[in-house]
């Protein structure tokens, strides 16, 4: 036990565990933050940072453990957390676009007299909150007209206006420029000097080193390390974020002999994508690594046309013939397949049968003059369902009744039916059980072996390393470096994704 009594600790989370479905998102994590301390919580995607934060802010209830503010236990629920003095800074999505800055800062808590808002008082309180964080914004401006950074600051002002004792921020700099990030960090330091306890969740190592006093590293839901930042180097932090006992080389070597360039994307620009170029060859698996907000999904969607791009050209080459891809429909027509990140909303129609889902992109070849050929469909779907190992392989069952892993197999199956020349997979095994994961990996490699050019986005480092022949790592909409299969390790990828270093491509 520490010598500081619990009554002096601004917020103490003890023994927090939370299970979602079968998986343990947070496993017995404890941390304490003193007033005036900035405590960073770091970990790669899926390490449990968000879950832990949501428990601390009262949004979800943990399965075990407790949260105390200055020694007093906090009941579950957002109301209780707010009353106890815990303020959470959401991403800017939590503002009402058409209301003014002042109104957003005090949303739900306007000062009133006989029901009428006392605007003078409202603005005064709002102005004070803004002054406290050192930002000057026109109080009457509508939030929708502010820049992303200012919206983030208004969000912080809202949290600060309630005079909290504890401030929790989740990846606040994900959408900010370096100058704005700098401003934010200085703001937080100032607030800490004033006695606020701050929990800063991030995976941007330079920032963590700039402002924190202490850091907690999470990995796979477990607390790997909690220490004063002064005792660590950035590389040590990164290593601890990813350091798994390096087992025997998982990478089943693929003798990849990539053929011609199938996909060439040049100078792609889109929201969150800053002039990226890349190529994928036939039979090659290219991986895109990076942290949340790096722009990977945005990049691939811009390449295939699922989202509009503001600049750049994409060409698809097969058998010597090149086609410029302009729209998503033309991409699919020309042999592009896409497994989207959000399986349930974009990848499948859950209340339709497996057979129907497989039929969707394949409908032209499964029909005659527009009329469906049921036997062909059944054969086709059954063959693919068997090929991907759908368990049980009942194609007339609703897709939504299968587990996540099986659902993902259905998504894969429908594209496999088209024998695509270029295949994009975004987080192919998110929410998928171990067995299905291995099968999906096998299928992806098989696709590549059959000549498909594959582009994979993944936050799962071991998966990225196992599948990819080449890994491009992205950060802030750019490719910070590329690694071949030989050079790629979890550390090297994470360093490019989170650290300062820009490796030689």
């Amino acid at each position, binding site marked *: 036990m520490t010598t500081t009594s619990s009554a002096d600790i601004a917020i103490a989370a003890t023994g927090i565990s939370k299970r979602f479905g079968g998986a343990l998102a947070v496993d017995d994590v404890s941390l304490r933050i003193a007033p005036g301390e900035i405590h960073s919580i770091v970990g790669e995607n899926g390490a449990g940072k968000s879950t832990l934060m949501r428990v601390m802010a009262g949004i979800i209830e943990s399965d075990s453990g407790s949260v105390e503010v200055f020694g007093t236990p906090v009941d579950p629920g957002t109301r209780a957390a707010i009353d106890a003095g815990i303020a959470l800074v959401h991403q800017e999505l939590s503002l009402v676009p058409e209301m003014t800055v002042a109104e957003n800062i005090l949303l739900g808590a306007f000062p009133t007299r006989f029901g009428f808002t006392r605007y003078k008082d409202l603005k005064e309180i709002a102005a004070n909150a803004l002054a406290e964080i050192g930002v000057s914004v026109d109080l009457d401006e509508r939030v929708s007209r502010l820049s992303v950074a200012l919206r983030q600051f208004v969000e912080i002002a809202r949290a600060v206006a309630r005079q909290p004792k504890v401030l929790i921020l989740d990846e606040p700099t994900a959408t900010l420029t370096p100058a704005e990030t700098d401003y934010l960090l200085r703001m937080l330091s100032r607030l800490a000097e004033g006695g606020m306890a701050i929990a800063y969740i991030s995976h941007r190592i330079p920032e963590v080193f700039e402002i924190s006093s202490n850091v907690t590293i999470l990995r796979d839901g477990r607390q790997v390390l909690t220490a004063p930042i002064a005792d660590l180097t950035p590389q040590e932090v990164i290593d601890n974020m990813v350091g798994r006992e390096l087992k025997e080389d998982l990478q089943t070597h693929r003798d990849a002999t990539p053929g011609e360039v199938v996909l060439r994307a040049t100078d792609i620009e889109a929201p969150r994508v800053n002039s990226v170029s890349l190529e994928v060859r036939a039979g090659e698996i290219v991986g895109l690594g990076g942290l949340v907000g790096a722009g990977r999904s945005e990049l691939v969607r811009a390449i295939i046309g699922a989202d509009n791009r503001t600049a750049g050209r994409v060409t698809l080459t097969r058998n010597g013939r090149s086609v410029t891809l302009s729209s*998503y*429909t033309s991409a699919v027509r020309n042999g592009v397949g896409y497994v989207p990140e959000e399986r349930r909303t974009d990848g499948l*129609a859950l209340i339709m049968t497996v057979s*129907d889902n497989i039929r969707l992109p394949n409908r032209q070849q499964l029909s005659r003059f527009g009329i469906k050929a049921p036997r062909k469909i059944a054969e086709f779907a059954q063959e693919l369902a068997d090929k991907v190992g759908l368990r049980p392989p009942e194609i007339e069952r609703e897709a939504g009744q299968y587990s996540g892993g099986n659902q993902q197999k259905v998504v894969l199956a429908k594209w496999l039916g088209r024998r695509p020349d270029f295949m994009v997979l975004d987080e192919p095994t998110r929410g998928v059980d171990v067995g299905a994961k291995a099968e999906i990996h096998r299928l992806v490699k098989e696709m590549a072996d059959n000549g498909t050019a594959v582009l994979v986005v993944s936050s799962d480092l071991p998966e990225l390393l196992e599948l990819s022949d080449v890994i491009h790592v992205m950060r802030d909409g750019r490719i910070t470096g590329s690694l071949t299969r030989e050079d790629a390790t979890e550390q090297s990828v994470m360093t490019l994704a989170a650290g300062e270093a820009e490796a030689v491509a």
Partner: protein
Amino acid sequence: MAQQTAPSAAEATTQSESSRLAGTLTWMSQNGIFIFTAILILFALIFVDGFGSLMNITDVFHRAAPIGIVAVGMTFVVISGNYLDLSVVAQVATAGVILIAVSNNYGIFPAILAALAAAMLFALVNGTAVGIFKANAVIVTLATTFIGLGLLRFFSGGSIFFGPPDGPIRTFGLGKIGPIPYSAIVLIIMTIVLGLLLNRTNFGFLVRSFGVNESATRLGGTNTALVIIGAFLVTAVAAMIAGFVLAAFSNTAVSNDGVGYEFRALAAIIVGGTSVFGGRGSVYRTFLGVIFVSVLTNILVLSGISFGYQQVALGVLIVLAVSLDALARKVAQR
């Protein structure tokens, strides 16, 4: 704070209870129609005087036909998740007036062509606004209803058009096979054709897929705008045929025809078990819904209950049926 608890037996029971409730509600909202229709017809045969008479049955068919044709066509729009097409009222009246007015002067064939052109125009405007501009279908079709009716009233001057007493239109209107008038046969044929269109073609598949999950449909490589225009086109053609049938019934046409069709068709569709949220449903169910609504209306009329009460009944029916659907979904999600 939270204590460590294993999922207790109580929790397990409530979970299976709620999923059973969800199952029951879903089943009822989708299949209740079969039972209710059967009960209703039985009730009518036993308790309502004059229901079973040949004349009455023919009358029921006559009245059911045009509304039914509109309903089976509009099912496409509903299944696509776009709520409904309010402008069917204008489309039915327009088709009827064009049929009689044009055929009186130029013959049947040009009349049909003209009506077809009008239907396609409706479909194009509605479909483009909803499919490409992604505007709200209810508001768009509200606007096109008034535009359509305005044009119709202007060009027709509000006058009633009469078909020739021995023309082909009259012959069709009077014809029947046994107690079943030609118009009802048209309804049955349309039901079968549209049912096949919805269930057996790629187009129908896409309409349904769009209603289930727009995003996944688009990402499957579909030009969704064309699908929506297509759904409105089916509705427009159906409304046109309904207009023909209606005009043939009385051998007259006037711009006021078709009043109330939009909500009667919607009632039939919803009561039949097609979800107004899109994706679930079928043309055959709508047919059943048409029978139910027609029989119900007939019972009310035979019992001397005024038109007003009928409207109230249908409005309440719509709201209840949709509520059932909504509640079923809510419980299922929990």
